[in-house]
């Protein structure tokens, strides 16, 4: 039985109708076999929809804009980004947190859900893990872009030097450097390790050209022997455990950039969980965006299907609710606390020069996710596409509104309320960062399997077994009915 595949462009009349009941599917159709998985994935790499090339071109153009802005800033000095001696940070630090946040969803899907044996993750975790790596790389770039003397960035690293001096280990920025570096290293290793069986499949299915050489090299002689599989599973499990710790500690450390300081609006104990959940939230929203794009672009409709999307959306909604709770907790602790400066800061956010943005952020990040609560819209692709983008805009604003208002309204009234609107340089570099991230991801998805073949095959096997059991038990009937209760 062929399951009706969705198309990206639908009849506009159906746009708000949501997914009809009869197209309800499971995470993987039991009718998909191993060979089909292999051929679908390999073919998708060879032959994406033409929009792929347009996307690549757009990303390159965006990177070009970002690089041009950065070159100008590098040559002239950071002043062109229009910060001031009061508002010393700006878009860069906000974007840094944002990208670190985006990276977290990948770890959640690939590592945490791996441990909980959530099978539906199997088609999405690969690109999610790739997003982790690339988002961290983008975040790292922002740290460097933000420095006044970025050519001296190596001073932050504790390398043995002739001067006999070390970085300041008390500084959260140094912790950042450690944690981001570690996280990036580990997530790259995790991504690569998980790909080895699939790379071997590619190696065996592609017969010439540079790809063949590449896959041969990267597959590291994977033969799929029992011993290899056993070692592989142990290594993969270990890494995933380690990565979860890193992910949680990672954003906690980033939050301590702020929470360790004495500035009102930053000096908040609940920041680490708030940051971590916020990261998962925005990262999941980003996953949905990429989900919809890849699904269309690489013709992954069979694998990135509505069931997976629904679960992803539900997960995002759950995270959004946790985050909302923490958001209000944060405000409540400030409001009922004794720190007058922090209270002033909160009032300033809601009424000061950043008030418009603050209310917009609250609408986007707190109110908007409620759309996800409605079943009919959970699998509505245009709605989810727009929604996930809006959530990310909201979450970016959240980060910016952590950074900027505190700088503009901290302890010293003489420097209060400078409305330092970032210049086009800052926006250009932020814009370029999306191009850079997109480019990396698109190239990755074209060169490497963006869905995990071996895990899908496991899933396919499981579904086939289920189907067989259903037939055996019922003796007749439709397989869809047999599996319905599994939701």
């Amino acid at each position, binding site marked *: 039985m062929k399951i009706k595949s969705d198309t990206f462009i639908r009849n506009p009349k159906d746009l708000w109708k949501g997914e009809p009941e009869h197209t309800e599917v499971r995470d993987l159709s039991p009718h998909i076999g191993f060979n089909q998985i292999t051929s679908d994935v390999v073919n998708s790499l060879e032959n994406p929809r033409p929009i792929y090339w347009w996307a690549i071109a757009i990303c390159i153009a965006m990177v070009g804009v970002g690089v041009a802005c950065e070159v100008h800033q590098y040559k002239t000095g*950071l002043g062109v980004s229009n910060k001031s001696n009061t508002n010393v940070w700006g878009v860069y630090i906000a974007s840094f947190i944002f990208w670190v946040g985006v990276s977290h969803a990948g770890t959640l899907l690939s590592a945490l859900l791996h441990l909980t044996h959530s099978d539906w993750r199997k088609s999405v975790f690969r690109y999610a893990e790739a997003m982790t790596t690339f988002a961290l790389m983008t975040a790292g770039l922002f740290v460097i872009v933000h420095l006044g003397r970025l050519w001296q960035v190596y001073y932050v690293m504790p390398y043995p030097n002739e001067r006999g001096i070390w970085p300041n280990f008390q500084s959260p920025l140094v912790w950042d450097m450690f944690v981001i570096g570690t996280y990036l290293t580990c997530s790259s290793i995790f991504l690569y390790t998980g790909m080895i069986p699939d790379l071997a499949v590619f190696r065996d299915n592609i017969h010439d050209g540079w790809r063949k050489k590449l896959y041969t090299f990267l597959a590291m002689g994977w033969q799929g022997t029992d011993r290899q599989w056993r070692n592989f599973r142990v290594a993969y499990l270990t890494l995933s455990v380690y990565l979860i710790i890193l992910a949680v500690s990672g954003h906690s450390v980033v939050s301590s950039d702020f929470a360790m300081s004495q500035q009102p609006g930053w000096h908040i104990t609940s920041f680490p969980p708030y940051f971590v959940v916020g990261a998962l939230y925005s990262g999941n929203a980003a996953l949905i965006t990429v989900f919809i794009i890849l699904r269309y672009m690489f013709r992954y409709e069979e694998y990135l299907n509505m069931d997976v999307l629904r679960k992803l959306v539900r997960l995002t909604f759950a995270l959004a609710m946790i985050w909302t709770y923490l958001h209000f907790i944060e405000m409540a602790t400030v409001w009922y606390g004794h720190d007058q400066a922090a209270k002033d800061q909160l009032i300033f956010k809601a009424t000061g020069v950043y008030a418009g943005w603050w209310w917009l952020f609250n609408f986007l990040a707190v109110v908007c996710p409620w759309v996800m609560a409605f079943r009919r819209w959970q699998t509505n692709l245009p709605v989810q596409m727009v929604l996930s983008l809006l959530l990310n805009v909201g979450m970016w604003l959240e980060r910016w509104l952590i950074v900027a208002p505190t700088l503009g309204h901290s302890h010293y009234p003489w420097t209060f309320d400078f409305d330092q609107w970032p210049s086009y340089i800052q926006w250009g570099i932020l814009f370029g960062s999306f191009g850079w991230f997109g480019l990396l991801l698109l190239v990755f998805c074209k060169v490497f399997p963006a869905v995990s073949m071996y895990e899908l095959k496991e899933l396919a096997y499981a579904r086939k077994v289920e189907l067989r059991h259903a037939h055996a038990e019922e003796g007749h009937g439709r397989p869809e009915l047999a599996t319905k209760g599994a939701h």
Partner: protein
Amino acid sequence: MSIANLLQNWSRYRDTHPYGGAKPHMGYKWAMAIDMDICTGCNACTVACYAENNLAVVGKEKFLNGKSMHWLRIERYWHDSVEAGDPIELADGKEFKEGKQFHDQGAHFLPMMCQHCEAAPCETVCPVGATNHTQDGINSQIYNRCVGSRYCNANCPYKVRYFNWFNYQDPATENVWPEPLNQQLNPDVTVRSKGVMEKCTFCVQRLRAVMVDARTEERLVREGEVQTACQQACLAGAISFGNMLNPESRISKQWMQQEVNIALDAQPKNKHVGDAVDKRGYRILENLRPYPSVMYLEQVRESAV
């Protein structure tokens, strides 16, 4: 710093809050006191600071954008600006609610520079240790170590750190010191390039010069031997500066007389309510516990007129 002291106890090697800290001040603790009752707000100290410390004149547009580089700025407050803020709570607990139509008790001038906090919030966060506490109690800023993360400024409660947003010394672009204006530059003070943070140093070049002389002569720096540029310029003599550890110095007497203890975050002076005018010393944002080294003396206004 090295691996060995890193492994032993790295934090022991920082000079921090001296009282109870592992490393006491060695012979010197530089501190300042500013009497705001006689400060007239004339800006002589500001110009002196520009002259002494090679501060860049940034021009109108950059000043507008908050990129001014005045290490020492004179802040002007109105105590009667009811619209602008809340009533000011006075030291004696009363609220100040006066002056509706005019600023009829004058302005309040407050020279604000780096407070050289003993437990400076900026020092702990610098990723590269470019800002440190010296043994004589100064908050140092090392330009050639600074990478420009601006974390120190973000953490400074007083916002007295200034960043080089542009290459002010570059004749091709900014040209803050066009020929022959650059000949005025003080050779004892580095001209900062773009991307580094800078701030008031208590005129460390002057301090170090006399401290070196004193070492050669095997003594400590005497009271009055060194002045900061602002202190030297201050027409009214509102600024005093010196070594707190010298019991004979004006500064230590002043702090003692005002009963301001550098190691406390709140001064127990309530017993002196009756003698209020003489006990005017306080430190700004003391309650945040940065233990600033600059004591301010409250302004006085005669209530009889």
